[in-house]
């Protein structure tokens, strides 16, 4: 068993024991079991799953040691807290916005892309 802890700036979300955790690493999805070597990994927006539970997490990072996984991310939500329709609406809005932004405005472009990424991650969880 390994202890999983998920913390966001707004609230500590979760602290539980589980067999394994799958995390959306920046360099690819990875799974953590008990006895994992110490690891500090950046996460991209995606799905965190453990047991039969799923959780949407925003960008952040995970700190892993043999008995403990702590995930610090800028936002997280349970699937039941999300609404598919409104998320899809948001995605469409963002995509429309993306088309309008001039290619040279790199900063805004990146920002919108990051938003799209996290919305897509949320949709995938639902």
């Amino acid at each position, binding site marked *: 068993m390994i202890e999983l802890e998920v913390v966001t*700036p*707004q609230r*500590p979300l979760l602290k539980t024991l589980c067999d394994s955790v799958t995390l959306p690493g920046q360099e690819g999805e990875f799974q953590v079991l008990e006895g994992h070597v*110490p*690891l*500090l990994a950046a996460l991209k927006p995606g799905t965190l799953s453990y047991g039969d539970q799923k959780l949407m997490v925003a960008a952040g990072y995970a700190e892993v040691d043999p008995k403990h996984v702590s995930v*610090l991310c*800028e936002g997280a939500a349970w699937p039941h807290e999300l609404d598919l329709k409104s998320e899809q609406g948001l995605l469409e809005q963002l995509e429309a916005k993306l088309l309008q932004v001039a290619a040279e405005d790199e900063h805004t472009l990146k920002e919108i892309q990051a938003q799209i990424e996290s919305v897509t991650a949320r949709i995938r969880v639902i």
Partner: protein
Amino acid sequence: MASLRDIRKRIKSVKNSEKITKAMKMVAAAKLKKAQDEVRKSKAYAHQLDAVVGRLAKRLENQGEAPHPLLQLHPDGQRTELLVLTSDRGLCGAFNSNIIRRAQRFLKPDMRVSTLGRKGYEALKRDGVQIRTNYSGIIEHPSYLKASQIAAELTQSYVDDHVDAVYLVYNEFKSAISQQVVIKQLLPILPAESVEDPVDYIYEPSQQELLNHLLPKHLATQLFQAFLESLASEHGARMTAMDNATRNAKEVISSLTLQYNRARQAAITKELMEIIGGAEALA
């Protein structure tokens, strides 16, 4: 001596003020509870992030790497920016004036000033301080997103070498009845001193990149934490101020009531004397 009717009017108006201050006290108490809760809930994140950044920075330092731009001091830098965090609304005792006084003592002529909150903006502008930006509409509903936007802005101007240090002055939340004005250094970032021996981690991506990733978050978290604490302090200060105001109103009412009763008694006595005097004259 004031007439009966005048006193009655005054009692009525003080009673009205008392009702208002009492209601405001209740509202502040309810909001305080919520804000206090949020401060508590956000502590875990801030604490853990601080620890990780501290460990990572320490490791890189031990390896003899050049420190990250956000950790690096700008030696003999003179250009300082001060962020002044006040509330948007008044009626909260010395909450804002304490901050403003502290800020003015800290200020030197060539410092850049930005304000968060209307009260600080108005007061400093009145005193002729040049204000770079006023971030409005943030204090009432602090959000992590807004904190990270401001953090990104500050980071950019630090990296581009427009400022050499950034400080934040705000009310630290001690308890419901006490706040403390503190000045906190935001940039360069001062990570927590890590005492424990750093464990050999696998880093994904590299340590440098992770630190690049984490430091802006660290700054945003510090700002966010300050917003929450300031909001909780504000409600606490308002609650105390309104409690005092209610008590004062009660005192005024009781002294006015006494005066009213005396005046009434005097009027009755006077009338009686007149009647008796009249009856004696007839007899």
